[in-house]
């Protein structure tokens, strides 16, 4: 049986008084699109750094594609591509030089065709000869993604890759990352944009204070919050019939809202409004979203 893409067992790390990781166990299977969520300071970046060998854990083991990140660091690092959170670059070099050097550090010869392909995919071809200093923030972000891919790693970790990135680039980036995932790469993503995680990730772990407090498929996590939220704006001066008023919440802007366990409850509400002669001016039906789950998990943990 092949090893998982990532195996993390009993990892702890303390920085002075701060317990950054308080015993993390996690496995990510090959080919997954995995989300790692949590508030700032939850330990996401420390966990990624430990996986990349940038931080040495106090205890526990980490493996990438079955290779221990300490004992077998060469194989582990060859299997892993990391897009760091900070927008870092080396101002001495052009985009192409940056990528050629990065490939060279991994011992790759003749990286040019692959570099051309990455540049093309990330829409960087026209910037290949431009010095890193002269690039906009979004462009620098793309180069960071390209740098993480030069050695064709099987596992790609993106640490908040869309922070401060415009919509167009974000969509282009996700399209590209989705394709990498379809091609068999395992993707691990941390982000503060929960709607991104919801639409991309098949499975999600939520971290708080150095621990994983929720770990499940995205679908199962979404099932944790009650069905749908119905919001209504009623016609002038109209009041809810008594049967409905007890389960409704008044909201700002004259809206009332209901939590529906299932969609068929909607029919019952609309019928009793019709029977009471109440006119509905506006109606919104919200899907349960990851943000609600996230808030609930973080409160509970």
């Amino acid at each position, binding site marked *: 049986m092949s090893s998982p893409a990532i195996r993390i067992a009993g990892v702890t790390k303390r*920085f002075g008084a701060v317990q950054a990781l308080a015993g993390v166990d996690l496995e990510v299977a090959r080919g997954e699109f995995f989300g790692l969520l949590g508030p700032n300071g939850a330990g996401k970046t420390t966990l990624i750094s430990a996986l990349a*060998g*940038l931080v040495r854990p106090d205890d526990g083991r980490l493996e990438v594609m079955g290779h221990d990140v300490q004992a077998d660091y060469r*194989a582990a*690092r060859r299997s892993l591509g990391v897009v760091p959170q900070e927008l870092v670059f*080396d101002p*001495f070099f052009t985009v192409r030089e940056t990528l050629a050097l990065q490939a*060279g*550090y991994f011992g790759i010869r003749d990286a040019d065709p692959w570099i051309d392909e990455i540049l093309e995919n990330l829409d960087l071809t026209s910037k290949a000869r431009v010095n890193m200093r002269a690039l906009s923030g979004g462009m620098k972000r793309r180069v960071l993604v390209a740098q993480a891919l030069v050695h064709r790693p099987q596992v790609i970790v993106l640490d908040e890759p869309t922070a401060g990135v415009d919509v167009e680039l974000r969509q282009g980036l996700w399209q590209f990352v989705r394709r990498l995932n379809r091609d068999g790469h395992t993707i691990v993503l941390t982000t503060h944009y929960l709607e991104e995680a919801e639409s991309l990730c098949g499975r999600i772990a939520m971290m708080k204070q150095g621990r994983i407090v929720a770990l499940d498929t995205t679908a199962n996590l979404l099932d944790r919050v009650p069905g749908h939220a119905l919001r209504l704006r009623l016609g002038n001066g109209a009041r809810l019939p008594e049967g409905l008023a007890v389960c409704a919440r008044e909201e700002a802007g004259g809206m009332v809202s209901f939590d529906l366990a299932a969609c068929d409850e909607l029919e019952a509400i609309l019928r009793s409004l019709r029977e009471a002669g109440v006119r509905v001016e506006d109606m919104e039906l919200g899907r349960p979203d990851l943000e609600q789950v996230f808030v609930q998990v973080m409160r509970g943990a």
Partner: protein
Amino acid sequence: MNGFRTLFYKETLRFWKVGFQTVAAPVLTAMLYLLIFAHVLEGRVQVYEAVSYTGFLVPGLVMMSVLQNAFANSSSSLIQSKVTGNIIFVLLPPLSYREFFAAYVLASVVRGLVVGAGVLVVTLWFVRLPWASPLWILAFAVLGGAILGALGVIAGIWSEKFDQLSAFQNFLIMPLTFLSGVFYSIHSLPQFWQEVSHYNPVFYLIDGFRYGFLGVSDVPPLRSLAVAATCLAVLSAFTLWMLKRGYKLRH
């Protein structure tokens, strides 16, 4: 290309791209020292028989340039990478700590040799040197460059801010190089300072290097070579130990 070769190439390319600042500027500085000291002291100071003061000064200046620039190369590269955060690019790949060390130190040696050669070429207009034994010249230049390159790695990793690095430079490297007999023979010093000078490893680097040009020196060149080799061994061992532990690089 393997990882070591790439990192070495990158460290060399880095200084070469800003050659005006990393090569031309130190050559000009050495020229100014030469013009001023030779102008003031030529004919007044005679260190070795049959060697003019300028002839005495030039090898010292060349070696001082080698040493200072070797130190500057590794230390400034590391501190810049750390402060800007791009050090991550060399920490993520599968480079061993030995490769890391060798690449930074070797690039420092190259920078030292390039600047040293530049100073030498320019000073050839001013003085004819006997070139007594070129192999000694090369041996001391490479050893000296490596020693200061390793010190630069230590300083670059230890420093967290630019002012800490400049303190290292101003309070350790500068006194060691200036008080090493570049501008004078230590035999002209009072007994006490002569003895102190013998504890300065840079003195042996300058003295041995000068022997290669002039065929005369304050201490036998073999002893200088032994001191230099020991220094390099100790500093390398210490630097490798730091890198292996991941000191300030891998928390």
